[in-house]
């Protein structure tokens, strides 16, 4: 199935990546090329196949509920794009 420009804009909205019209047209072309190629998977009948969800066939381990790193607030804030030393600051969300 073909991906049209409207769909490209919708996906870019979902992916939170703004694209201008020129870029959207390029993406439309590329994505159609890629999905046309991907659709060869439809040749296979997989009705009775169980999906492979994880290559490691084990359940996740549990560990003791104890704190492994303490007092690392400054470290965590170190790479913040905003200068505030106490919080991550973002543009106003509520008016």
């Amino acid at each position, binding site marked *: 199935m073909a991906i049209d420009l409207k769909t490209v804009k919708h996906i870019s909205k979902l992916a939170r990546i703004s694209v201008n019209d020129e870029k959207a047209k390029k993406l439309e072309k590329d994505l159609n090329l*890629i999905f046309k190629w991907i659709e*060869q998977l439809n040749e296979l009948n997989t009705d009775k196949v169980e999906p492979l969800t994880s290559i490691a066939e084990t359940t996740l381990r549990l560990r003791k509920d104890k704190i492994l790193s303490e007092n690392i607030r400054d470290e965590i804030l170190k790479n913040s794009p905003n200068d505030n030393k106490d919080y991550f600051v973002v543009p106003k969300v509520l008016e």
Partner: protein
Amino acid sequence: MSNITDLSLNELVDNVKSKKISSKEITNAYVERSKKSNKLNTYIEQTFDSAIKNSEKFDKSPNLEKKLPGIPFAVKDLFCTKGIKTTASSKILENFIPTYESTITQNLWDAGAILLGKLNCDEFAMGSSNETSYFGNVISPISDNLVPGGSSGGSASALAAKLTPATIGTDTGGSIRQPASFTGTVGLKPTYGSCSRYGIVAFASSLDQAGPMTRNVKDCSLLLEVMSSFDHKDSTSVDFKRPNYCLDLNKNIKGKKIGIPKEYRVDGMPKEIDKLWEKGKEYLKDCGAEIVDISLPHTNYALPTYYIVAPAEASSNLARYDGVKYGLRADGENLIDMYEKTRSQGFGEEVKRRIMIGTYVLSSGYYDAYYLKAQKVRKLIKNDFDDVFKKVDAILTPSTPSSAFKVGEKSNDPVSMYLNDIFTVPVNLAGLPGISIPAGLDKNNYPLGLQIIGKPFDEQNILNIAYSMEEKINFKLNIKDWWIK
């Protein structure tokens, strides 16, 4: 004595242990050579001064019990290094300084190794030619304007140019084995769960594995021994008894059954690759192994499966780059606008393309048609391998369907670029170990590699097979220093 940078990793270790060469002499030699390598564009970050200081520190009280005593290493810039910029070759992480260390690099430093710098790669490891890096293309030391492969292109190029005695890469669909093949070096992708993913910038978590890239098979086994460890910090790390890969390395492969999958003979593959593959079979027979014709019927579906699974996981992993806690932040009129502008400005074209593919295949109404379908085909691909491994001990294939190509040659056609990984991707989808070793040259004198695929956690076996073949192939990488300025 010959030039320090001509020695293999194992030779360097032996020389340090017998006190014939100091860590500082080795580090100096690599720093000097690396300083002249700008033309190759392998380094994103150079830590030469601290490397030399660390080598002096090592020499003052050398611990010669270590596996990599005072050996300098440049590593792919996908591994987080505490206090040292880690970019994943992306603008969005251009100024990111991790406050923690990846387990793999920590294992290296614990073994006595010293950081030389961080190496260029495809942005977020998404690429097969190192042309998607925000920091520019990497050039192969083999020829001007030739790509080193990708995504561990900086690692392969630095290794082949002898800017580092050995290095580490990551492999999601072939990102260690394909560049190793393109540059005449050895690269191994371990079994999923063998090497910790903690602190590696995530691309596709069910496929990503770190692995060694070296000049020969013995070095590869030594480095794997250091890298592979059980790690509580990686929930998919597997707790198994790890052999001493280097100590146990041997050439006794008599009676081993090696499978030759007919599906790996693809249209348009250069004759030289077919010839090398045939030669490989002869070498194995000479070593006493038995050649068995096998079939992996779903091979052709591996790449399209990969291009659903990997982008889907990537779109979810890369959702964290939103300009809030770290990384680039663009100004926006409101929060959503800030997200959209940050991600639009911070990611390169290929990364955006893959996030878009992933978002689409996971979006409402398309999940079953694409993502679920791909997971089912992935199961069929894994079943193919499970079936043949009842009959054979390992599989021999070419590493890539072609030799290295020129910069720009494939960058306008995403599908033709993706086809580079046709022989390596099935191994990631099935979580298996695979090693690429140099096997010969094509008509342009560009290297070509052969790949040996093993059963899960059977790295020792494929290393032994590679070690036996390496002796017979006797490949010599003859790289001129044309790039030294």
